[in-house]
């Protein structure tokens, strides 16, 4: 087992289950989108599930997670109730954000899942703020900030990494390098696309590049990074190489990339490969995995049903939660 911590079979199977939960959640979301029950932008995380699960499973419950608009995976991995997540996608009053945020703006304060932010790079300054709050209070929590390769283009990446390093803030920047922004490639966007992780060193932030398709490698690297960050040594950056199996959003047929490239990456599907390794290693039987799929599908089918059955917000809800204390 490559992971730095000792993982028993139950835990490994749990990772599988968590990744599958995200995958099935999104498969169903895509269906519901086609049926017109989910609207607007829907960005799927298909193919990148190993990152959310490997990284977030390494956190304490009180650690903060913040991410971009491709947020279903992170939200579920941090413990968001699939019912609340699906209902949010449906725009229902029972959604985690009462239907007001939608797919791109999921939040769960109790789980310290701090969003779901749809402005590319916008979550970066916020993440330094979470880390600063924790540092000032001395309560030992860290902030885990996910970002795409595209967010590195934004000035806020620079401002946030500099501040985090300067003030030794407990924040772990986690770059999900899936090779594309929307249609633009990392080559078209970043002068240093071939060594993004090294770029962090310019800020005196240590970093590592890892395979983002392997949940155990993600977990191992994250645990090492967390030890650094929680130890008071300032930020750390991980670049995980990954691929989104689908277009940028449901509206995107991804005509800008070769089908052969997609196929190559799909061969490395983080869920099927991990499942196969569990079976090969004798940790689980195929029947057990099939059973997990059945369970997970039941959970998500129930979430869809819950969302479908839930009411839309009352018209008056329009004016709620604009300001507090009123």
């Amino acid at each position, binding site marked *: 087992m490559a992971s730095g911590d000792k993982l028993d079979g139950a835990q490994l199977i749990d990772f599988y289950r968590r990744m599958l939960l995200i995958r099935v959640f999104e498969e169903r979301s895509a269906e519901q989108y086609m049926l017109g029950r989910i609207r607007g932008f829907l960005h799927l995380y298909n193919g990148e599930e190993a990152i959310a699960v490997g990284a977030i499973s390494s956190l304490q419950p009180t650690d903060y997670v913040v991410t971009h608009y491709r947020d279903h995976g992170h939200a579920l991995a941090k413990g968001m109730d699939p019912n609340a997540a699906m209902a949010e996608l449906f725009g229902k009053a029972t959604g985690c954000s009462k*239907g007001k945020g939608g797919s791109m703006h999921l939040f769960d304060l109790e789980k310290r899942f701090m969003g779901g932010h749809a402005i590319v790079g916008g979550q970066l300054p916020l993440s330094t703020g979470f880390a600063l709050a924790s540092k000032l209070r001395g309560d030992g929590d860290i902030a885990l900030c996910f970002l795409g390769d595209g967010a590195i283009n*934004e000035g806020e990446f620079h401002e946030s990494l500099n501040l985090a390093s300067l003030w030794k803030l407990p924040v772990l920047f986690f770059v999900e390098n899936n090779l594309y922004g*929307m249609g633009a490639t990392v080559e*078209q966007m970043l002068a240093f696309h071939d060594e993004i992780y090294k770029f962090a060193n310019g800020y005196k932030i240590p970093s590592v590049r890892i395979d983002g398709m392997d949940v155990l490698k993600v977990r191992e690297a994250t645990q090492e990074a967390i030890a650094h960050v929680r130890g008071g040594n300032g930020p750390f950056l991980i670049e995980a190489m990954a691929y989104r199996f689908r277009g940028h959003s449901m509206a995107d047929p991804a005509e800008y990339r070769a089908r052969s490239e997609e196929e190559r990456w799909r061969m490395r599907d983080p869920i099927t490969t991990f499942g196969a390794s569990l079976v090969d290693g004798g940790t689980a039987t195929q029947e057990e995995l099939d059973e997990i799929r059945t369970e997970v599908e039941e959970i998500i089918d129930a979430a869809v049903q819950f969302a479908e059955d839930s009411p*839309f917000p009352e018209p008056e809800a329009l004016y709620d939660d604009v300001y507090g204390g009123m």
Partner: protein
Amino acid sequence: MAVITYREAVGRALREALQDERVFMMGEDIGRYGGAYAVTRGLLDEFGPERIRETPIAESGFTGAGAGAAMAGMRPIVELMTINFSLLAMDQIINHAAKVRYMSGGQLSCPLIVRTVTGGGASVGATHSQSLEGWFAAVPGIRVAVPSTPHDVLGLFRAAMLQEDPVMFVEHTLLYSTRGEVEDEPYVIPFGRADIKRSGTDITIAAYSRMAVVAMRAAEQLESRGISAEVVDLRTLSPLDSETVVESVRKTGHAVVVEETWYTGGFGATVVGLIQERAFDYLNAPVGRVAGEEVPTPYSRYLEQASIPDEARVIQAVEAALGR
């Protein structure tokens, strides 16, 4: 005369503009992706990557690069994928592009066109549904065009290319698939000329962008209720053709101003102010204002619909103004 979509009108305008060698385009995903709203589809193949420049996701950086290139004699067209992202490029537009002529005593100019997309109604949530064009229209040195039809897109874009100053060319997300007639011979719609899209005698409805379309639909329904509404489409917010609006109100004696952004601070208030100032003695009732609800735009569909002005609200405001 051909019938084309608003999207096609933008595309045609861009192709025309690109005949000038000094013109080039910059923006996110305008190349192989074809633009987030499929407006720039095909341009990369036609004009090549030197002139259709795919940028990093760095709004301030590439908008400022456009401003600099314009100051150096080029005619860049920058696309900000939506006007919401202009919040990241505000400094370059407002403190640099808009002020350089004045601050240099007229030496430099910045003929930069920033194309962008405004408005709500697409279920994309509060961060992606704002209508911020009024802020730019407030800044001396900038021009702002807000077309509501394919015809106006084409004529106003041609005029934008003739400006010697930065222009925010603001398209509307829900208008791209609307259709309309455009003349074949090349016409230009000069900036600062509002358009009486429908004439009427009982009340003036002033609006722009998609709200001009909503106002037209409201006016049709009002007609069946026996109310003759004149619809004035502002077409450009800067320069603002207050003359046409005021003239119309002097004729009708009543007015409603419609816009999509929030009531407080909305650009429509400036129009109301001008009307009451210059047509005070002609007004039989207060000028009505219809604007977006004062909330961040909600994702959920019915809430969102309730947050954006529609025909019903325009009709209600018109009837209130007419005391019916």
